[in-house]
């Protein structure tokens, strides 16, 4: 068994390296500022690193240095449309008028931008990412300081690489979690290949954003949650979960989904302890809750209080307000939910870069079939489990699946709630939502997806191998295909 596990270990390490290598390819191919919201994420880091304080929405603005680059470099059409860039040039026009001398001149201009441009602000360009909690930006600010003497292009690309380092570490931790949850080694490798080679996933971490650190903290949080549920009651697990919850909430609001599942985790753990008296140990339950609260609240609370003082709401989200029950019902009635979930689905499987490049429509149909097949597999497994009485809520592995499903559902509710706020605040139709918020818990969704698919795979060495090789090959080819169409779009102006 040890030899078998060694092979697994080697494969998992190679997959992590492959993920990192793919990330580097994405970093090279994606032009500067092409990552979702990349200028605003960079502006946050720069603001903190240069001024030593956290930006405030509406009062802090992007630097002249960023603004200058936006006017020299080709920028994506959607950024171009924002209207805040002086004389923007899109990829198409840039290559149309390709002129080596002009590029050298632009390169020189960027390299020789005075230091003052890093601290002077452009009042038309808000740092709208200032709504984000600061932990990532503080950490990335350290990397920025190390590279302070370099030009902005070097700083941007180095920060992208930093994102990939964080995400690769998180991927390795995720695999350790999969090993704890899934007993079939072929399914583990298939899940790992799905995570490492999912092009949306790689793209999401090959840009500057707090997603890399969120993924890392979420991975650690899930890893320790799983260990907490699988092992005997250990105070160190509870403490670590509390710390990770605090750090997560100080990194991204999507971590509120993790906060939402904490009570469930504690209750499920307490259910494991039910003995013959059929009672949950209330003291243990209370103790765990208290420890997690005591550890996590001091880490994140200051930020949310700071939000309330500076923006008037705890989330710090721009242009939002607390929803009344009436607002909520109005919003729920106003949204075309079928369209909303369709967008959510499409964006999850493939919406690339700020140019919003999509794959051929057939791909989404295929993914819809895969998702439906997996859901059927999960459904049949669950029903069988119930009939055979194997599906016991006190069983740790069943509990882990419940936690995973709850995380996904809470994230969907959270994202939808934020979108409802935007809908009501801006009085516009809700048609678009970013699905990259779900990638930090991809381990949860991919475990469920592959568990469902696994139901239909015969249990034999040959079918296991074919299952793994098919996942690996198809995902690798999908990645290559996406890189090809993005390269064509960015550097030749070819659209699909």
């Amino acid at each position, binding site marked *: 068994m040890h030899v078998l596990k060694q092979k697994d270990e080697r494969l998992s390490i190679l997959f992590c390296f492959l993920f990192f290598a793919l990330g580097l*390819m994405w970093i090279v191919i994606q032009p500067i500022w092409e990552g979702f919201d990349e200028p605003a994420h960079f502006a946050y880091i720069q603001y903190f690193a240069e001024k030593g304080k956290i930006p405030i929405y509406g009062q802090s603005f992007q630097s002249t240095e960023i603004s200058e680059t936006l006017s020299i470099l080709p920028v994506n059409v959607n950024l171009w449309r924002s209207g805040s860039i002086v004389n923007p040039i899109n990829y*198409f026009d840039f290559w149309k008028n390709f002129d080596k001398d002009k590029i050298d001149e632009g390169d020189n201009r960027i390299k020789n931008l005075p230091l003052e441009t890093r601290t002077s602000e452009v009042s038309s360009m808000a740092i709208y990412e200032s709504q984000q909690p600061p932990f990532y930006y503080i950490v990335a600010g350290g990397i920025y300081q190390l590279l302070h003497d370099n030009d902005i292009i070097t700083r941007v690309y180095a920060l992208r690489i930093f994102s990939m380092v964080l995400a690769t570490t998180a991927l390795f931790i995720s695999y350790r979690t999969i090993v704890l949850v899934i007993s079939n080694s072929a399914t583990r490798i298939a899940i790992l290949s799905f995570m490492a080679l999912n092009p949306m996933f790689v793209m999401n971490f090959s840009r500057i954003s707090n997603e890399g650190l969120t993924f890392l903290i979420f991975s650690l949080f899930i890893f320790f949650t799983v260990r907490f549920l699988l092992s005997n009651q250990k105070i160190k697990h509870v403490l670590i979960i509390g710390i990770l919850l605090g750090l997560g909430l100080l990194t991204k609001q999507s971590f509120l989904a993790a906060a939402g599942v904490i009570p469930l985790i504690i209750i499920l753990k307490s259910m494991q302890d039910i003995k013959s008296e059929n009672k949950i140990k209330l003291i243990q339950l209370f103790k765990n809750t208290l420890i997690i609260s005591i550890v996590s609240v001091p880490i994140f609370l200051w930020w949310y209080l700071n939000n309330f003082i500076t923006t008037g709401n705890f989330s710090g989200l721009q242009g939002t307000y607390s929803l009344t029950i009436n607002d909520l019902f109005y919003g729920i009635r106003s949204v075309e939910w079928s369209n909303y979930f369709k967008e959510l689905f499409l964006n999850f499987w493939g919406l690339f870069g700020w140019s919003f490049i999509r794959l051929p429509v057939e791909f989404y149909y295929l993914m819809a079939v895969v998702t439906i097949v997996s859901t059927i597999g999960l459904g049949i497994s669950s029903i069988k489990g119930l009939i055979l009485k194997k599906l016991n809520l006190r069983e740790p592995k069943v509990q882990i699946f419940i936690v995973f499903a709850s995380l996904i559902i809470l994230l969907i509710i959270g994202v939808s709630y934020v979108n409802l706020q935007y809908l009501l605040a801006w009085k516009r139709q809700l048609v678009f939502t970013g699905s990259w918020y779900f990638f930090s818990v991809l381990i949860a969704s991919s475990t469920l997806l592959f568990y469902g698919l696994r139901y239909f795979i015969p249990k034999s060495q040959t079918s296991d191998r074919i299952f793994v090789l098919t996942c690996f090959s198809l995902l*690798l080819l999908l990645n*290559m295909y996406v890189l090809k169409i993005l390269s064509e779009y960015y550097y*030749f102006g070819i659209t*699909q």
Partner: protein
Amino acid sequence: MNKYFIISGVGIFVMIGIIFYNYEIPNQDYPFDIEHNAALPELYGNSTYGQIFKAERNNLNRIDVLVGTFARTNDRELIFHLMDASMLHKDLRTVKIESSSIIDNKFLTIRFQEISDSSNKEYYFFIESPTSEAGNAITLWYYANDGYYNGQMIINNKNLLDCKTDIIRKQHQNYTQFLVKHGGISNECYLIHHFKTFEDWSKFDNISVELNSSSEVSSDMIIFTQTGYYGYKIKNNSNLLKVELTNPDTISDSPNLMEVTAFRVDPYEGTNIGTYEIGKISLINATHSITLDSDDFWTLITTNNEIKGNLAFRPYYKSDIETYYDIFLERVLVFKPWFFNETFILILLIIFIALVIGILKIESKTTYY
């Protein structure tokens, strides 16, 4: 060696080869005007939407057009025609497309057998859908103000067939256009048989231009030069048109470049002027004679429609791998940090391939449990 390792390894790398084998380079000088695009009306019946463009490279093999479906599924057939802009009587390529597969507001890719010698030539393509009807038809997007000067959109080319009478000369930045003003409703249209030759014209006292048509010529012919209208108008009812130009040394400021345009005005209403062909033109004087074959001609046709602009379109050219990746490498490294260079990309590719092979190798030795 494990059969799964060999099959999957070969399969993966063959498929990657296929994915990257498609080396198509688009026209860089294409219309793109993000803020001024709009949709044309529904395309059905006798309507045609088309575009003249100048090919930048050889091996023209694809044209993309931005299509609108009016957010519905339409099920009628579209017909794409590609023509040499100087030989409008026959299709070089014809492609039939099912409109049911078209996605709203996306570029529709139309591929055809490549044209090997397309570089620097003018082409005209148009799309029609005679079987479509209102409520079951697609449309095309166009740009009203895109700065594309190497061609223009043509709506309802059937009107071109009615062109006649007045002639207008238009000087553009890079070329000259000659217009035949249509006396009708809203169209101006143009038909020019135009050739350039690089001769030292100043040494000639007289130039005789003979236009030898493969079919009987029965029309008025007017000869222009790049500097002006010479007013030669000849009525001829034979296969040979002969035009005398005097004092050619006054024709051009550039003695080595002489541009002569032979312009035919069709006197007969409804005559299909697009079928007119010139076999050859001879430029003759006492001491010198050159012959130009029909490849030296090109035709400009345009209409002055109420809707002006260019279709949202883009031509593509099949490229060889070397040219494609030379261009790609040159561009991908622009505005990148110093540590991203060709060596870095090469090393990254080698590591990537080694990792893929490594994974397949270890996987082949793994026993699942």
